[in-house]
């Protein structure tokens, strides 16, 4: 029944769901985005068979980039097995029949929500981000008509004032994720809600980074080796922070960690949010404080 259903679904829709005209329209927006790094290109976002907010922008960008030879990886919160990552991966398995993988190094295209993989990306790879609010100035100025003008005029004083007020009030910049960046000294860009720990990985990456916001109808891009700087002040430099722990499963001290509550007595442990990174390390024999040796490698 399921097999039959999948076959009819794949037959009745074009490769990777979208029709070729729509893909062409999206590719044009992507090319424009690549030509003007960090600039938000309006595009005629389509209604996808998943809700807005579930990654419709990322899905459309992925659909426009996929070829039958691609090997796709989908992560949400760094993990391959979160429900929405599973759902999006399944969507492309059904509609494009592409190979899938959980391995960051083997993937040719990675769609992500809220994380950049820990292992360095390589030339030829594409990283597609799902973006909820593409406008870094949105919460300072709700009007799109205004913020577009501010970008045009490179009028970014407001965002520096906001960061300054944070420091005046809290002694530190109180933005922990979706930390704004400046691209090649021109456009201020929202890196999507990745933790600021991931911000340094945006810069000078050999991979192509594409950002898709479906509901807001915007695409933007960081071509390979684009210089990206997190906004800061000379006396309050940007700091990529994480929980001050090592991973309790693989022992990594340099990866972003999720906090897992293990009981109702305040017990907790810290584990890598990037599940592939953690698995590879465990298989290589790295063990954290709470790892069970015989389980390592079998997960």
């Amino acid at each position, binding site marked *: 029944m399921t097999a039959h259903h999948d076959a009819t679904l794949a037959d009745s*829709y074009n490769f990777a769901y979208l*029709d070729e005209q729509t893909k062409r329209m999206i590719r044009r927006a992507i090319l424009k985005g690549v030509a003007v790094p960090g600039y938000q290109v*309006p*595009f*005629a*976002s*389509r*209604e996808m*068979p998943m*809700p*807005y*907010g*579930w990654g419709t922008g990322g899905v459309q960008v992925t659909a426009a980039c996929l070829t039958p030879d691609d090997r796709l990886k989908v992560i*949400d*919160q*760094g*993990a391959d*097995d*979160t*429900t*929405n*990552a*599973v*759902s999006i991966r*399944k969507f492309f398995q059904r509609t494009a029949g592409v190979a899938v993988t959980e391995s960051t190094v083997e993937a040719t295209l990675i769609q992500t929500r*809220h*994380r950049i993989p820990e292992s360095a990306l390589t030339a030829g790879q594409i990283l597609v981000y799902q973006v*909820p609010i593409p406008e870094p100035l949105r919460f300072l100025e709700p*009007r*799109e*008509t205004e913020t577009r003008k501010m970008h045009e005029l490179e009028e970014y004083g407001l965002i520096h004032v906001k960061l300054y007020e944070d420091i005046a009030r809290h*002694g*530190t910049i*109180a933005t*922990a*994720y*979706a930390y704004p960046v400046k691209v090649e000294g021109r456009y201020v860009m929202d890196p999507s*809600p990745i*933790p*600021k*720990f991931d911000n340094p990985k945006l810069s000078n990456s050999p991979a192509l980074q594409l950002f898709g916001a479906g*509901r807001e*109808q915007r695409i933007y891009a960081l071509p390979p080796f684009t210089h990206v700087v997190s906004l800061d002040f000379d006396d309050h430099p940007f700091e990529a*922070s*994480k*929980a001050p722990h090592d991973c309790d499963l693989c022992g990594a001290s340099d990866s*972003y*960690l*999720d*906090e*897992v509550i*293990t009981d109702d007595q305040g017990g907790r*442990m810290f*584990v890598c*949010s990037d*599940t592939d990174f953690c698995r590879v390390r465990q298989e290589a024999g790295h063990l954290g404080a*709470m790892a*069970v040796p015989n*389980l390592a490698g079998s*997960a």
Partner: protein
Amino acid sequence: MYVAVKGGERAIDNAHAWLAEERRGDLGVAELSVAQIRAQLTLAVNRVMAEGSLFDPDLAALAIKQARGDLIEAIFLIRAYRTTLPRLGASCPVDTAKMAVIRRISATFKDLPGGQVLGPTFDYTHRLLDFKLAAEGEAIIAPTAPAAMEAVPHVMAMLDRDGMIEPEAFGNALPPDLTRAPLELPASRALRLQAITRGDEGFILSMAYSTQRGYGRTHAFVGELRIGVVAVEMDIPELGFAVEIGEIELTECETVNQFKGSKTEPPQFTRGYGLVFGQTERKAIAMSLVDRSLRWAELGEDYTGAPAQDEEFVLMHADNVQATGFLEHIKLPHYVDFQSELELVRRLRAEVFASREAAE
């Protein structure tokens, strides 16, 4: 011992199976057919067609069945289907003056050519629960009269002849398509109307209501409300003339709005316009009020800061498929972001407590 949660795929499959079972409900009760929904829940079908932007009562009924009666979910199903359909071309503008009306009322004139036709309306029903309906009642046959072949001209055309209402520019320009190009502001009136007609009924209703209560004033009278069937014609290039390809039911509302004149415009009545698929009169009336309210700039009126005057506010928040998606997405995992906030708040708290201790 902690083992990371796996099995998202099986959980999803099982959730879908459970959903399907819940949708069908008690097997002891006969299954609802799509034909029943189409024939007996017509106003729900109409709303789904209007906000789904697809005139197909069978598909709308199917969507309502699949969505378990959740109309926004049904609208979403229709939109997702609609977006995959090829665009074969554009029809000629429909001529609502030639509508075969089932309902046509004017609040501005007691009688007029074509007459007042109440049609199948709830307006003068007493809202008393009809318990006879609980015990499957027999078919009601309404009295009929032969269709009047008399023309039913628009009330607005009559006002227009006297120069009492602002003239409407006639044009054959192809309007922009909201579903094929990103919405850019400021939007033309055609584009605004397109966004409002597929906007959420509740949102448009509340926006219109707010103008009546004083957040921007529309001073609206229903010049005319008409519901009926119009022919859809399309120019066939090979033939060189337009051919009727089908008919659709529409609700059209034209409001007449008091206007004392501005620096640029003489005193006259102004127009608000609503046009919606199906019998959807609440939506059509609300649409015409919101349309009028958004026209303040072209008429040289003051912007009073009312939400219904704010094009960006209205157009960016009217779509319920967008709104519900973004609203509900906050139930998806956000633990990476939350973790970063946790650490930030912990650090800020530690600093506050440390400075308090130092002060003591």
